[in-house]
């Protein structure tokens, strides 16, 4: 375009640029925090994972890939050969299974809850949201310990059941897989309900009526109309539960009694009693990489589908 740009257009363009610059400034505080406390420590972990472990914790400033090798292999004490050892992989697998089960149960319980909230009269809805956030008012550790007191052998449930003569021996619930999933479920349920609620609240219920009008019964209206339209909320809720649940630390430690090692415990051990900081750093990074790769494929898959439809 060789045409001279008019004065007015020039001013408009300049003010647009100004506005863009101002908007960048608005993002500065959060960018600063993310860089300083998010990306910075990650880089430290990355560097540590390629260093040698010092005998009493900490690191020696010598390059080494031992941490990554140790993740999959065990060095024989006598002849120094590497032998494949899937112990850590099993722990990862167990964590993923626990997290997936937790996410699934959260979704099954959370969806009807969110639907109920979204169908209340508008003036009541914020009260329900407030109720959902009540658990956040107390500390996670306290809440987890409270669960412990409820489900242990001498806990509320067993005492009541025994008094009513439903059972004559206490059911062991504490320090089992059940306890871990229960704890995770309790901790993360609000993270499932809130995004589900926000997408169901936006749902146009005339579409539900249109479904009924076009001969769909309740079940098919749910599967063909409500669930597809609530998909953004379902995806967000599942990610918000799955990712932190994989790396959960406090809940499995307290309710699992350390009998069932999970990723969080494992990594913490390396920095504590294990005194192998590079291994801990490598384990943390491997977890992060695995989650990122899974997410990448998921997002690429689902956005590709949307384009094809």
């Amino acid at each position: 375009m060789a045409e001279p740009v008019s004065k007015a257009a020039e001013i408009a363009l300049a003010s647009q640029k100004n506005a863009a610059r101002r908007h960048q400034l608005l993002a500065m505080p959060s960018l600063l925090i993310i860089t300083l406390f998010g990306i910075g420590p990650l880089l430290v972990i990355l560097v540590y994972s390629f260093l040698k472990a010092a005998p009493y914790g900490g690191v020696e400033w010598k390059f080494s890939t031992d941490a990554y090798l140790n993740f999959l292999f065990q060095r024989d004490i006598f002849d120094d050969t590497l032998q494949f050892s899937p112990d850590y992989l099993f722990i990862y697998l167990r964590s993923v299974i626990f997290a997936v089960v937790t996410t699934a149960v959260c979704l099954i319980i959370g969806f009807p809850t969110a639907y109920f909230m979204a169908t209340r009269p508008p003036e009541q809805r914020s009260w329900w949201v407030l109720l959902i956030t009540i658990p956040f008012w107390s500390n996670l550790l306290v809440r987890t310990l409270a669960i412990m007191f409820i489900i242990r052998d001498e806990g509320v449930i067993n005492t009541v059941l025994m008094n009513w003569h439903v059972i004559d021996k206490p059911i062991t619930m504490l320090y089992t897989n059940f306890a871990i999933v229960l704890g995770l479920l309790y901790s993360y349920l609000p993270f499932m309900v809130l995004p589900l609620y926000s997408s169901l609240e936006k749902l146009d219920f005339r579409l539900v009526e249109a479904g009924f009008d076009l001969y769909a019964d309740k079940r098919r209206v749910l599967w063909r109309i409500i669930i597809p339209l609530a998909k953004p909320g379902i995806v967000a809720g599942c990610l918000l539960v799955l990712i932190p649940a994989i790396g959960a630390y406090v809940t499995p430690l307290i309710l699992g009694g350390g009998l069932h090692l999970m990723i969080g415990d494992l990594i913490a051990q390396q920095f504590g009693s294990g005194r192998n900081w590079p291994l801990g750093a490598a384990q943390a990074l491997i977890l992060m990489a695995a989650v990122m790769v899974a997410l990448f494929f998921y997002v690429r898959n689902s956005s590709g589908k949307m384009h094809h439809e």
Partner: protein
Amino acid sequence: MGLADNKAAIAAQNVSKVFRGAGQEAVAALDNVSLTINQNEFFTLLGPSGCGKTTLLRLIAGFEFPTDGHIYLYGEDIALLPAYKRPVNTVFQNYALFPHMTVAQNIAFGLEMLGKPKAEIDARVLAMLKLVRMEELSGRKTSQISGGQQQRVALARALAPKPKVLLLDEPLSALDYKLRKEMQIELKRLQTETGITFIFVTHDQEEALTMSDRIAVMSKGKVLQVGTPHEIYDHPAERFVANFIGETNFLKGEIVSSAKGVPRVKLEAGPTISADAPRGGQPAGKVTVVLRPEQATLVPAGKGELQGVVDNVVFFGTDTHFHVRLADGSMFMTRQQNSGANAGGPKAGDKAGIQLAANAARILKD
């Protein structure tokens, strides 16, 4: 009464609907409504917002259930049947197209839910796309098409399962004036081509008059009058109907004689004129006479039945409205067609006479 007659597509019998909000007073949206809608009819429920017309439509669709009364579909009482079991489809006010489906998937939805075989669904969807002239856009998402196109898809979706009755809830209200005119003609064409009974809800009297075979005028949960557009316009039974449909002059007067069944009314504005009695009634005493603006002609002062002073002249392009103040102080409006030659008509402040057309005045059933 023969309301459950098999010939009637829809027969509503003493239908009432009361809404009870929490802690609020019960509101009667429909009050003992009885209506018969014939097969292949383009039937319009007309009235201002809050008159109960949409409630009646939702009762027929099955989104709400009546508090009292019966609704028959070809003789079968459907009042308590859930919506998905009724062979009735709806075109919603805001179309309510499924945003996660394409145009074709939207149209196929009802057929799929009815469990039709795939080949039949495909053929029917294609036929529907052709009917509403949307073949090219079948693969589009519903968010990627214009309002007028969404309207066509909504029609195709509702017509695809071949409903016994099609319900239309103010489907044209979101369109601009020109598109609305086009769609009025389009709707009438679709109704003739498909032979399906249409029940159309609107608050727009012009829309109702142009498209309908019959109109039910509703107000405050009651049906005031049912009839063809001509009957409703020419013989309004009540003041509300006369006022709501078209423009009307209301003249106060008193009946002086009823010789040969033709009442003579002495108007407060002066003259005594003949006026039609309302159907099924012999009025007496003080009455209100109505007269449409186009049934009165402006003539020079001294001539015609009524005399007055021109108060206001409003130019409308095709015609001009003259507001004339009569002897008793009331306003009378006449509408004169513009031929281009009569630019020098009466102006505000001029004295003028009004000539009333013969047999045009009607007495209201007050």
